[in-house]
């Protein structure tokens, strides 16, 4: 099994994908730190930074612009060399506003959109807008060429397609024929939409209310001048995702559900011809041995060393329960290995404490950047 360093060789973008609560943010930060310590200039783009972790990296004021982690802080932890670690927090709304400002013909057109209530809803709530804005920012920073590697911590989603489809969905929404309909409900587009359009519109207006209808229409009118700019941009953002410089690392946990999701993510990434680089499985319970004895026998053996049968039984019971979960993890990972054929799978053990500082990230990196043998040895002693 290769290490994360080998996986990321010659890549400029690493997208960490996965469902919520699997440790994506920590993994992204650890990859960023590890690659920086190997001499690269790295920027980690995150959605929701863990406050304690950000604080410990001296990044109290993380915003929509990249901030550098103090090299002095890194060298305190024996991380030296030419590498640099930067981080930024993605703000979907701010990115969207900036995008509108970029494509608007003039200040008036810009404000018409920014002030529109429908726009304010979309920029927050439209499915995929957060995902798209993450990519948009990634694209912007990548095109500036300031960094060797960008690590993107994606918004949690059930479906990796939410992410992959985001540019398409956004442009479809903005440029769609629906738009034509609202702008010129009696024109050519209405005739294409089928007979009885007038009747349908009046039925719809009746259900919905004229007011909301008028607002939507106004929004699309305000947006019409920006369509080409948006479409062109989304197209370029989309092709960056599929570029050979970009790769996806799927992050998951060892339980059945997260593993199923990882398998699904993998198949969708392949279908969409994206570069799948590997899976990081966090919080894996490694087995301490091959087979744990039965409760009675184990209790006796521990008791013979402790001379405290009550404590011996608690210790034995604890190991048996731990081992049952370790067996489950091993089974799930075996299933993952089968489904992914030869793709790299990196197991990071369930550590005794939460990771919230540089030392914690460095601890994780002993696994992420180690060989499979090193990982097993570290985890099981």
């Amino acid at each position, binding site marked *: 099994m290769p290490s994360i360093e080998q996986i990321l060789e010659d890549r400029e973008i690493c997208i960490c994908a996965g469902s919520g609560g699997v440790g994506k943010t920590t993994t992204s930060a650890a990859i960023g730190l590890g690659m920086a310590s190997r001499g690269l200039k790295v920027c980690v783009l995150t959605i929701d930074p863990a406050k304690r972790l950000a604080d410990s990296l001296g990044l109290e004021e993380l915003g929509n612009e990249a901030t550098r982690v103090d090299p002095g802080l890194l060298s305190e932890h024996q991380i030296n060399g030419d590498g640099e670690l930067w981080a930024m927090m993605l703000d979907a709304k701010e990115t969207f506003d900036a995008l509108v400002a970029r494509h608007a013909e003039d200040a008036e057109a810009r404000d018409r959109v920014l002030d529109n209530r429908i726009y304010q*809803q979309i920029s927050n709530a439209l499915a995929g807008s957060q995902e798209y804005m993450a990519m948009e920012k990634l694209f912007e920073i990548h095109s500036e060429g300031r960094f060797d590697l960008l690590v993107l911590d994606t918004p949690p989603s*059930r479906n990796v397609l939410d992410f992959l489809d985001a540019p398409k969905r956004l442009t479809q929404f903005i440029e769609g024929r629906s738009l034509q309909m609202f702008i010129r409900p009696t024109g050519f587009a209405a005739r294409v939409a089928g007979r009885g359009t007038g009747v349908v519109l009046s*039925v719809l207006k009746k259900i919905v209310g004229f007011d909301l209808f008028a607002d939507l229409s106004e929004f699309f009118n305000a947006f019409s001048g920006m369509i080409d700019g948006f479409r062109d941009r989304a197209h370029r953002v989309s092709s960056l995702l599929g570029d050979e410089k970009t790769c996806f690392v799927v992050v998951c946990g060892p339980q059945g559900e997260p593993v199923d999701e990882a398998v699904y993510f993998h198949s969708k990434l392949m279908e969409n011809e994206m570069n799948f680089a590997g899976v990081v499985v966090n919080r894996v319970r490694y087995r301490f041995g091959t087979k744990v004895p039965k409760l009675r026998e184990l209790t006796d053996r521990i008791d013979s060393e402790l001379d405290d049968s009550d404590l011996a039984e608690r210790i034995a019971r604890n190991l048996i329960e731990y081992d049952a979960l370790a067996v489950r993890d091993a089974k799930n990972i075996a299933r993952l290995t089968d489904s992914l054929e030869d793709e790299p799978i990196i197991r990071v053990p369930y550590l005794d404490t*939460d990771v919230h500082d540089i030392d914690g990230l460095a601890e994780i990196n002993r696994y992420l950047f180690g060989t499979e043998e090193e990982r097993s040895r570290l985890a099981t*002693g």
Partner: protein
Amino acid sequence: MNWGIPDFLKKRLLFVTGKGGVGKSTVAIAMGIRAALEGRRVIVCEVASSENASRIFHQAAVGFKEVELANDLWAISIDPEDAMKEYVLFQLKVKAMRDLLFRSRIFTYFAAATPGLNELVTIGKIWELTQLDRKVKHGRKYDLVIVDAPATGHGISFLQTPRTFANIARVGPVHNQAMQLETMVTDAEQTGSVIVSLPEEMPVNETARLESELAGDIGLAVDRVIMNALYPDRFPAGDRRAIKRLVSSDDPDVRAGGRAALSQSRRVAAQNEQFDRLKDMVSAPISTLPFIFRPEVDLHAARRLAEELE
């Protein structure tokens, strides 16, 4: 089992929220099981568009139809498209008009072009389920509706939808519907919420933030914070020295026992630290649920948790 119905299960509508991966769906089901055991007629709703795939729902093949999971315990998965169709059905009594609308592409365009419409019709369906006089023909009556709501981020915008729509559509039917839903969400007598958390840093932070957003911005009562998956504290500090001695034993199984016990007690300490932070950070009453030592958290596990709820 803790006998008697926990206070928060006496409401009519409960939204269960929390960060992704905290066990929200399992807790929602456990709440449902418990309320049903206490004699309430319950339905648990999954919001199909949310990012949490619930295994229990999947295994029971729950769809837009109300399905019975156990005695007095029902389940439904609310798909926004179905909810939209049902909404139109209630609005347009004339079948020909409905057919005309459904056949027309304009309707599809409109549905796609209106941000938040999916969320609105989903909450509309939840409202319909809470009604004792159901709009759905031969609809069952429920005493308690439990919603497995979308995880944080999306959860907040989900619950905000009625107010946003009430503002966007200043007059007309959508405005009136949205106002009605807004009233339902903010009615602290009947409606409340439960935030599920884990004894880890990020979920604890998220819980505190969520509580202030729900109670403050949204105006939804937070009845309970549930600290999920707490490890049993098996090894008091006095055991530490004995356990450490085992780590250098010649017997590999004994060594493994020592290491596992040591890890366990460190994790308990880390959990307690986070639990203490939570107590300082939230104002709603906190209940706890134990970590379930089972390979998969299934309906059996949910039953055990149901008994532990207090």
